């Protein structure tokens, strides 16, 4: 127990020293970044060779590598090309087709644990909506959703391009807040938004909001976008809002949930899908926040790289590390299997020899 506490205290001390002594922001040059990647690759090859020789990897080693794969890319200046997938293109085209002034309903159905994947989507979506002068109505079927929306709005408003537009609450966007009731909320909104949201996030009556004027139900909404990480989420929006009220819906789902909503994409019930962090990075690229491939990106506009594009380097590294360990694990499995067979064969031949000598 004492040893554990000493380790925790040591980690805390090192963190504090790094926090106060190391100049911020830390950024490795491309050369240093590639050297680090090369060194990690060499160590993995070394582990692979050790595994072939019969020395298995301890799971703590995997934890260390995953930790490094996630953390180190934050300090690296490695750019990777983001390729646009068809489902992201469909969503972009659907939003691009909206005329300025069109009303877009955005439902935030997630909480902070899913924010690393969904928050970049929300920011990129808001950026594009405000850039194109679309009117945004925010709501949430998860209690923390509207709070996440506020964070996304604040960050989006920091982009000079959007700041110059002087976005006004109540006129350009409203936040209706959270309402309990899951899919029943969606169903009631089909009849009347006001019945489910008599007051907005800040307690302002629905009728006092200029943007809500003339918005009675889904028929007054041109497009809807759902950020989803579970229940209630995209599945419920498709089943109630799309199927029953004919809402045009796009979705941003966590990588875990995305496979579940793919059938709705093929059937045309979903107008586009952003799946996981990769979907967020792709959407950032297409709306001009990616800062790669020579596009006018976030980095050039604000000095801040789009979160999805930035986090994607960590995700790439983590995926490669996990795949490397899956290969190592399979090598250990097959070699172990072969050794067991060899051992059994040896035993059998020994037994036969003994029988023969008897």
């Amino acid at each position: 127990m004492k040893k554990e506490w000493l380790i925790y205290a040591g980690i805390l001390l090192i963190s504090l020293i790094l926090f106060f002594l190391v100049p911020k922001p830390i950024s490795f040059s491309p050369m240093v970044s590639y050297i680090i990647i090369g060194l990690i690759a060499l160590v993995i090859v070394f582990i692979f060779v050790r595994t072939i020789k019969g020395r298995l990897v301890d799971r703590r080693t995997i934890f260390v590598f995953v930790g490094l794969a996630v953390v180190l890319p934050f300090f690296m200046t490695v750019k990777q090309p983001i390729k646009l997938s068809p489902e992201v293109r469909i969503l972009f085209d659907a939003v691009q087709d909206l005329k300025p002034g069109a009303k877009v309903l955005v439902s935030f159905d997630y909480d902070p644990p899913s924010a690393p994947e969904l928050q970049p989507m929300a920011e990129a979506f808001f950026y594009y909506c405000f850039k194109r002068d679309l009117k945004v109505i925010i709501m949430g079927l998860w209690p923390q959703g509207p709070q996440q929306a506020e964070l996304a709005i604040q960050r989006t408003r920091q982009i000079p391009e959007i700041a110059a537009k002087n976005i006004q609450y109540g006129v350009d966007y409203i936040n209706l807040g959270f309402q309990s009731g899951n899919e029943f909320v969606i169903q009631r909104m089909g009849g009347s938004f006001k019945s489910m949201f008599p007051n907005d996030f800040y307690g302002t009556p629905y009728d006092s909001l200029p943007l809500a004027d003339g918005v009675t139900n889904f028929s007054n909404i041109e497009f809807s976008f759902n950020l989803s990480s579970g229940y209630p989420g995209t599945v419920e929006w498709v089943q109630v809002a799309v199927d029953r009220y004919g809402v045009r819906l796009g979705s941003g789902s966590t990588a875990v949930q995305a496979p579940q909503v793919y059938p709705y994409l093929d059937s045309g019930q979903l107008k586009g899908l952003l799946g996981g962090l990769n979907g967020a990075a792709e959407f950032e690229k297409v709306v001009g926040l990616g800062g790669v491939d020579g596009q006018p990106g976030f980095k050039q506009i604000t000095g801040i790289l789009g979160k999805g594009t930035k986090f994607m380097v960590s995700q790439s590294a983590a995926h490669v590390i996990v795949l490397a360990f899956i290969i190592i694990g399979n090598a250990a499995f097959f070699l172990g299997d072969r050794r067991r067979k060899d051992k059994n064969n040896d035993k059998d031949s020994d037994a036969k020899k003994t029988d023969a000598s008897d």
Partner: protein
Amino acid sequence: MRREIPLLITGIVGIVFILQYFVPHYPFNMLNAWFSDWFSIIAACAIWLGALNLIKISTVKVYRKKAGWGYPVIIIISFLITVVIGFAGGQDFRAGGSGFDWIYRHSYIPLSSTMFALLAFFVASASYRAFRARNFDATLLLLAAFFVMIGRVPVGDAIAGVIHLPESLMPSNIAVWIMNVINAAGQRAIMIGIALGIVSTSLRVILGIERAYLGGD
């Protein structure tokens, strides 16, 4: 009567919800609105019930000094601080810069994200131990996982580009094909199965045949 009344309520509400889907006119539209509002009210009360139950369980643990009773103490203190600051903030308690907002940003978000981030480590460790090509089925699963994992990150195409793979064999294209064809087909089958199961279970509940939700017969 303790059983008959809940059964009656369930039956009536269930039948009304089915009818209002096909006949969205008076009186079914009115009943639908009425029952939906009731559902929202009950769901909101359930949130309070959950919070109070958490406090009750935590208090009992602390009172009886059960193993790990220090954690419930943190729960109770955190709960009380958040509730007091939230109520003290009035109607704008969630506005940017408020005490509640500060707790949300600097305590709730980092703590919940940290807990979720641990998943990455366990997934990596579990993949290392479980993703083995033991037989044909496991090998198929392994290959699908391999291509989706490498195809969903840009580095996959970058590696494939180095070894000059044709466009159709790029990991990103293979991943898209797996998701759109194989995955979608499987998901559809699962969804249809679940839907049929829900229909049959719902009918049993509405007709009063299935009573397990009342506490079991």
